């Protein structure tokens, strides 16, 4: 049996800056993972449905517009409502430090800001996948 880590990288909301998401997607690919890249302007419902159909182990959300408190938490809440508890959710982008505790409480396992070495993200994902 060959188990591969499957990751969904998505950009919720209206922000159009996807360079960070692409860099992370590529780094995870190079670390041997299968990365489903869905691009810009996703709703929480689209992200959750995609995560279900693709049976991903990890959802990576990237947001630079400031709407993370709404959109990251929406995704986490919707997953919980559907009783999906074995998917690791991580976030990245421009996220003020003071928001991080609330995001973590809502179910975002870790938040990676600008300047994070991509290897740190790879390591975190590998060590924290739930299945």
């Amino acid at each position, binding site marked *: 049996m060959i188990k591969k880590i499957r990751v969904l990288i998505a950009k919720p909301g209206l922000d159009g800056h996807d360079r960070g998401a692409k860099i992370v997607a590529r780094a995870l690919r190079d670390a041997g993972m*299968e*990365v489903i*890249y869905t691009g810009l302007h996703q709703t929480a419902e*689209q992200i959750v449905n995609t995560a279900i159909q693709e049976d991903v182990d990890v959802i990576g959300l990237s947001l630079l517009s400031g709407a993370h408190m709404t959109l990251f938490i929406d995704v986490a809440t919707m997953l919980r409502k559907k009783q999906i508890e074995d998917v690791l959710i991580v976030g990245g982008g421009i996220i003020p430090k003071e928001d991080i505790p609330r995001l973590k409480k809502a179910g975002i396992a870790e938040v990676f800001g600008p300047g994070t070495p991509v290897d740190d993200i790879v390591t975190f994902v590998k060590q924290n996948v739930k299945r």
Partner: protein
Amino acid sequence: MTDLASKVLTGDARSIARLITLVENNSSDAVDVMKQIHKYAGNAHVIGVTGVMGSGKSSLILELALEYRKQGKKVGVIAIDPTSPFTGGALLGDRIRMMDLSTDPGVFIRSMGTRGMLGGLTSAVYDVVEILDAAGMNVILIETVGIGQDEVDIVKIADTTLVILIPGFGDFVQTIKAGLMEIADIFVVNKADTPGVELTVAELESMLDLATHIERRTPIVPTSAKEKKGILLLVRTIAEHQEYLIKSKMYERRRRQRYEAELVEIIRKRLMNFIFDEDKLKGVVDCCIDQISRKELDPYTAAEEILGKILK
């Protein structure tokens, strides 16, 4: 029947997704479930969509799926992208063109990496077709990896194969080459909103004129996924091909071909599992090596004996 099998048969998305993961990972947990669902599959029309990278396969699939949804059909999509032979990772990006379908409960899309398989498909694709079919999909669209001239395995699984070309893909001599150009049930000239589409269609027509004994001339359908043009004609042409398959008894032949390919693939995988199960293989091989080095046995005879034991 297992719980997972019965949930798959009701069309439950999470169960379908989980079973696909099991077959992709070559897990033994999938075997019983696959055995149970086989008799419920075989109703979906399987459409292969192949062509070079950037020819618009994903965008065309979006348009086709939207059209089939209007007809009330349930649609499954299998979108295959290459797995890196260097790292084993993959970037599966076909879905990006299909996000308009992602909240429709009548559509199930799965992205897959080739995971070492050549030929434009992935080893688990036969199982995934069977799963989506048993789960009640009426149409299954398979997008191969962006291909060159020679990756034609899609014909082993599709009822109807669409070969997607774009204006300017090459001159006449490209159209009479073997491989890709031989497998089309329908040629689609996509990006028909760009210059050169007439020339490409004409070159395909004159290639088709060269065929000597044909019972059915391959139709050519110009489309523009971007401008949503030609999609209805393509859907109609696919339906005509389906009727032709039924009338000419080709449907059964293609299904036989698919099951043959699936069976061979299962056997191949089992053998590969054994070969790559290093502990097991080492155990079998170790006992012969001493004899070979003492010249009591030659390596060919030893290999034949070992294979005989495995295959027994």
